[in-house]
């Protein structure tokens, strides 16, 4: 069976310096040079940033750069799959690799039991009780906010030109900003990260009064 690892460094020493070996590229160490490698290995900074944030562009594997500077480091002993893993560590959603049936060998019962952690509590400043929503049920931020609007039926959604979304209590005009606590325990503005990443990292939601929301992390420039 073929072993899907990189060509070992000794091999390239023997064969001499190929063009690809010497080309300066932005890319992960030992980036895949197997047949069908991406000719557009050099990427501009903005594309790099976009890849890191999860939009898979030119790279057919869905992987990409995300580390600054040249390759450096390791001697190319990683398969494509572990390259994806490296990229994923820089906060990018996992690359769409082909899922192998029944691997890893984890019982469905366990998978299902851990999956249903997409229920999160929703608190509204000033409301006497909390609600719970299952984030997996929604396709994106719009649907979630609509659902919250219905749930705490006093709100309407107000859209701002810079794509911020706020919920407004029409009775007294108080604005509420949807915020959430992530896995690290930090309070973030809802809407900054890709939806899937949000679902995976959101632990609870709080509709915070706008006046209190000034201390949250500013949005990344779009």
């Amino acid at each position, binding site marked *: 069976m073929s072993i899907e690892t990189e060509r070992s460094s000794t091999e390239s020493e023997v064969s001499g310096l190929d063009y690809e070996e010497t080309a300066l590229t932005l890319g992960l160490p030992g980036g895949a040079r197997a047949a069908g490698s991406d000719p557009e290995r050099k990427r501009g900074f903005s594309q790099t940033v976009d890849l890191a944030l999860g939009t898979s562009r030119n790279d057919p594997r869905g992987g990409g750069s995300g580390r600054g500077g040249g390759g450096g480091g390791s001697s190319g002993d990683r398969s494509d799959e572990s390259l994806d893993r490296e990229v994923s560590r820089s906060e990018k959603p996992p690359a769409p690799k082909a899922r192998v049936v*029944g691997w890893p*060998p984890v*019982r*469905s019962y*366990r998978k299902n039991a851990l999956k249903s*952690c997409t229920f999160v509590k929703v608190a509204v400043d000033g409301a006497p009780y909390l609600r719970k929503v299952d984030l997996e049920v929604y396709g994106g931020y719009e649907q979630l906010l609509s659902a919250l609007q219905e749930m705490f039926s006093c709100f309407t959604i107000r859209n701002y030109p810079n794509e911020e979304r706020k919920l407004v209590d029409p009775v007294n005009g108080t604005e509420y900003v949807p915020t959430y606590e992530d896995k690290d325990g930090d309070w973030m503005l809802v809407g900054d990260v890709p939806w899937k990443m949000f679902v995976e990292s959101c632990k609870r939601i709080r509709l915070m009064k706008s006046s209190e929301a000034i201390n949250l992390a500013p949005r990344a420039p779009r």
Partner: protein
Amino acid sequence: MMTYFPEEVVEHIFGFLTAHCDRNAASLVVQGVVPPAARLRRNCYAVRPERVAARFPAVRSLTVKGKPHFADFNLVPPDWGGLAAPWIEAFASSPTAAAAGGRGGRAGGGGGGAPLEELRMKRMVVSDECLETLARSFPNFRALVLISCEGFSTHGLAAVATHCRHLREIDLQENEIEDRGPQWLSCFPESCTSLMSLNFACLKGEINVAALERLVSRCPNLRSLRLNRAVSVEALSRILMKAPQLVDLGTGSFWVDHRSEAFHRLISAIERCKSLRSLSGFWDASPLCLPAIYPICSNLTGLNLSYAPAIQGSDLIKLIRHCWKLQRLWVLDCIGDKGLAIVASTCKELQELRVFPSDIYGAGSATVTEEGLVAVSFGCPKLHSLLYFCHQMTNAALITVANNCPNFTRFRLCILEPKKADPLTNQPLDEGFGAIVRSSKGLRRLSLSGLLTDQVFMYIGMYAKKLEMLSIAFAGDSDKGMLYVLNGCKNLRKLEIRDCPFGDGALLENVAKYETMRSLWMSSCDVTLGGCRALAAKMPMLNVEVINERTKAKSRGSPSDFHKVEKCVYRTIAGRGTTPRFVWIL
């Protein structure tokens, strides 16, 4: 020859057969001479249930296993089989069983009726109807253990609760149970006071908490109680106040505001449980609630946190530091290598460790590597049972682990990425696993992963003489690999292989071996239909099944003999009975 000896002589000889497998083997040959207290274990297709019931009418305890192990991982189509009904009906309706029950009826038990008292089933399809049959047919029935089963609902549980007057144990582990309402708990009559063990952790729906509290109150011998997610912390506190004698507890939902009165009531309730040795559950547990269990942590021998993904890092470490008597620990990989180092320095009595993956599809945050395992091997010399999901492993680490822990009986390593090499050397992990089998002479169960060549199988065949079960995935180079195992592992009973380059040559070289084994599973290998046919022809006593999920292939006439198949072989004396459309018996 045996038939010429009087029964008393045969029974005397039987008395010397203490090993379970030996008794089973002997009992297949000798009619009816099995002491009444015997336990029987069968694979559900190894022999016809009517025959077992006729031959062993007085059996009190029966264990039946259904689907192959790989069914746990969706490799077996859902309607494959493993039906419980024929077994329950056979024992319920066997006339000899009824007669035996009448003869040996216990005082206070039902006179007449089949004497079956304990039924354990694993990976079987169980229906509400057959649970009802069970409840009504076995007047002395005491213990029902269902593991990874499906096909029944809470109505079936209600039947058992209603009709089994001497129930001691209901243990439901990881089953798919349809929720048809919470009434089943109310079906235990007021006269039911004999419960010792109740586990319904896998139930998904609501339960009648008041009925549960009353049940717990009137069962003073209750030792083990595992609740489901629907049971709140407040309810848990009330239950613990009524059952401070508990030895094993599975909590329900373990979340409560740690500033509230309810939290303080929980602490008081748990503190009273001086006999508590084992904890599990922790559904939705928040780290802030963990201090509630600190008072009893130093008594714990078993701890299962593998369903509590919110408990990580420093909270987990703080908890582990209290648990210095732990023998069995199940955690998620968010414990990290650092956490495992704390386990190593704290839990000197550790015998069994399971580290499950918390983030199966993504890259995950903290995970474990070879470092954590090495640390545990240094700190926990009594470790003999391991299940370890990790992102990478090295030969050097495995060799170190092998040197530190020569007592493994179960060693299951799952490197999440198939065919992953040693990241330090880029080599296959043959040497590492070789060291494990060489050092742990008592190894009975082994699961391999990572990049592996035929060499590892040579080591296994050479050294793993006590090995009974081997699981292989994405490994090996040629037929030689499989043959090393078949030829070398004298005690091999179950071999399961997926996605390996083993073909007809390996399958057919040592067919006599299969007669000494319980089962062989091969999927996505290089075995062809022709190979399976040849095997079936050579070994008529074997049940060779070919499973083909594309059922239309069957109706179009047989595909070529070169068609590669998924298949399963198991040893059987009787036929199978009904077969689903996608299964061909050759």
